[in-house]
């Protein structure tokens, strides 16, 4: 099966720092793939590359098997890849419907739209309402400014925007990091519902319980490259933590082995 989104041998250097060092990536149809890694492992750079915000120095990206070149977030978006950024990228003072359609507003058909550029505000509100309902998000009014919403509701709006426009992939960067327990649970539900709609999700998260609750596969990133892909069904949280800290290593045959610790102190 061809992966929906794949990357091979990605390299990105910032001066002397190598943020990505031959990173590979595969996302299959209909799955939730978690990307985990320690701080500074290069997860963000990988994700930004896949969402078009970072242009890699080397390596290739394929969408449904076809090689693509992203020069900016808009290019990735044109290929149906939508990203929910960690700071959500919402205009706080503007209302929900406006935010959902920001940058791709719908105009009225006919003369009013073509000549007077009149926006189809009612249509956009109805569409925003429909998407939120479909994802089971209850928000009273589409004309509420985003800043009047709770953190979880804001996250839901950003996720709904991605789900509404993403036709191939939804990427989410730490969607539960700023949320409480109840709100996190709702966002995880939301991810599950997006998967049910047939959209694969890339979930970047530090939170192992969340990852193990929702992910079908876990991509472990370490020192700028993918070191393992494991299934939460066959592997434990401790094994994943071991892999991402480097205490464990996945051998070529897929078995996990301990790495001999050489601290240099017992010499």
């Amino acid at each position: 099966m061809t992966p929906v989104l794949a990357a091979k041998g990605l390299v990105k250097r910032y001066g002397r720092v190598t943020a990505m060092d031959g990173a590979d990536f595969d996302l299959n149809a209909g799955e939730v793939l978690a990307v985990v890694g320690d701080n500074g492992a290069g997860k963000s750079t990988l994700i930004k590359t896949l969402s078009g915000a970072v242009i890699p120095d080397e390596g290739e990206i394929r969408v449904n098997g076809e090689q693509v070149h992203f020069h900016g977030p808009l290019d990735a978006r044109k290929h149906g890849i939508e990203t929910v950024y960690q700071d959500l990228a919402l205009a706080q003072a503007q209302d929900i419907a406006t935010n959902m359609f920001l940058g791709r507003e719908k105009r009225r058909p006919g003369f009013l739209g073509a000549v007077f550029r009149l926006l189809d505000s009612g249509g956009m509100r109805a569409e925003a309402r429909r998407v939120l309902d479909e994802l089971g998000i209850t928000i009273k009014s589409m004309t509420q400014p985003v800043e009047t919403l709770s953190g979880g509701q804001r996250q839901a709006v950003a996720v709904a925007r991605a789900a509404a426009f993403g036709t191939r992939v939804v990427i989410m960067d730490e969607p539960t990091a700023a949320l409480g327990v109840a709100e996190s649970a709702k966002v995880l539900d939301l991810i599950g519902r997006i998967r049910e709609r047939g959209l694969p999700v890339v979930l970047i998260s530090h939170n192992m319980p969340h990852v193990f609750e929702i992910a079908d596969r876990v991509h472990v990133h370490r020192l700028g490259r993918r070191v393992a892909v494991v299934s939460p069904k066959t592997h434990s949280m401790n094994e994943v933590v071991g892999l991402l800290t480097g205490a464990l290593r996945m051998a070529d045959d897929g078995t996990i082995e301990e790495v001999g610790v050489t601290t240099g102190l017992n010499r």
Partner: protein
Amino acid sequence: MSTIKERSEFILRTPAIGPALALVVAVVVFSITTDTFLNVDNLSLVVQQSLVIGTLALGQTLVILTSGIDLANAAIAVFATLLMAKLTLESGMPGVVALLIGIVVAAAIGAVTGGIVTGFRLPPFIVTLGMLTIVTAVSRIYAAGQSFPVTDDTLGFLGQKQYLFGQVEVTYGMVLMLVMYIGLWYALTRTAWGKHVYAVGNDPEAARLSGIHVRRSLLGVYVVAGVIYGIAAWQALGRVPNADPNAFQLGNLDSITAVVIGGTSLFGGRGSVIGTLVGALIVAVLRSGLTQAGIDNLYQDVATGVLVIAAVAVDRFSRGRQR
């Protein structure tokens, strides 16, 4: 049941409500305390006196919505008046052509300002401060110590009067200002262009990630503002048919005053042009009313200053409760 909450949300979402109430209160107070304020001629005059600042404030609102500020707006308008007047007087150019040249030059200055702000990512305060100094100097050089009377009918057109119902004095300038405010209100609230202006002022990074061309949007704002300043020059010649390089020296600050009193946030992304219209009228009503009440000009300045600070404080206070 939730009507109180809904009502307060409506007020938060309609920032022109507070200033509109203040305007009504001011009109009522002056109508009661003075004999001369409340009559048709005086009210018409109040509106006429707000035309130039009101038009400058319209462009200023656009810039402030993008979290910028324009210190050069009045200087640009003054330069445009000189250009229009001198071209008709000395080159014998038809008024229409001189008018259009004046507006295009104002737009071009706006484009340069916007180009510097977006191209070099410099703060608008500094860029427009520089433009203020440059344009003022160029105006004085161009005028060479003179002022220029305007005799052309086209340039003076906005000062012409019609009488509605036989007694209400209405100038074409009043009509034009109203049309411009409605037009810009429409563009800001009913088109994608306007939504993008608000988004850019609100959070430029979020706007960029949403696929908005932030620089293009900003540049557009400065060019449109320039066109508006060019039209403010036309309004000025309609009011006083004389192009004077020393006119409207405080026009930039007066326009900011109108914007702020109108409830538009200096932090960008919040506010409305309708509020600015009300703000410009409040200042004019205050000036007129205090004059009729026999209060000195300088005390009127004090009152206006107090009003500005109060308006910003109200903005801050309401925002603080919201968050």
